């Protein structure tokens, strides 16, 4: 008991000084889902595999809607994607004041829309 107290007294603090100093995040950490829609073919494999139904793929509209607030960071979508469009970022998803959906729209449709308006 006394040994314990003394060794704790003289060892350096265990505390990680969080906001002042962020810890380096380990490799391969499943932080948050990152989309890269450049190669996306809107096959919908990610939406099919997602256990939380956080991803919606609208193929005709070439639109991917990702609900960050349903996501359970299981990395199923990243494994299912054959085009390598989905990656798990090391950084965790940051808190926010409002709920927002992340919407990705493919390039062809976007120009169409711009052309119309």
């Amino acid at each position, binding site marked *: 008991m006394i040994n314990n107290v003394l060794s704790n007294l003289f060892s350096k*603090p*265990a*505390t*990680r000084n*969080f*906001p002042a100093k*962020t*810890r380096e995040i380990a490799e391969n950490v499943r932080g*948050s889902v990152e989309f890269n829609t450049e190669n996306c073919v809107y096959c919908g494999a990610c939406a099919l595999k997602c*256990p*939380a*139904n956080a991803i919606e793929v609208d193929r005709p509209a070439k639109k991917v809607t990702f*609900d*960050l*607030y*349903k*996501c*359970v*960071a*299981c990395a199923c979508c990243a494994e299912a994607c054959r085009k390598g469009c989905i990656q798990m970022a090391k950084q*965790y*998803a*940051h*808190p*926010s*004041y*409002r*709920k927002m959906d992340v919407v990705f729209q493919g390039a062809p449709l976007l120009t169409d829309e711009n052309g119309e308006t």
Partner: protein
Amino acid sequence: MNILQKSRAKSPWILHYDAGACNGCDIEILACLTPVYDIERFGMVNVGNPKHADVLLVTGTCNKRSARVLKNLYDQMPDPKVVVAVGACALSGGIFHECYNVLQGVDGTVPVDVYVPGCAPRPEAIMEGVMMALEKMNKR
């Protein structure tokens, strides 16, 4: 910022309620209390009494029975108060959003000020969420 606001921001007391979580977020909140993260550096204390608390941390999906308890706890807290929803379940029901006894997130029961996503969120994210909530509380 008057002295009252300043002192409130320097020592926010936290009330934690599990409205139907899997425990993952709860142990991460407890992990914030441990020497490694040590939120007591910021004057944060985890209290059991809603009347002493400024910040309500809610985890879990919120089912029909715990919604009543949650509402009750929220009503008992003195103003100004902020609510931080922690984890995918508390935000939208997460993986459980289609279960029969689940209310798909706590924002239907109590007004949520800060959403902390993740399953389970890392302690860093929870601490960040609480600090964001305090900023919001000071603007009130």
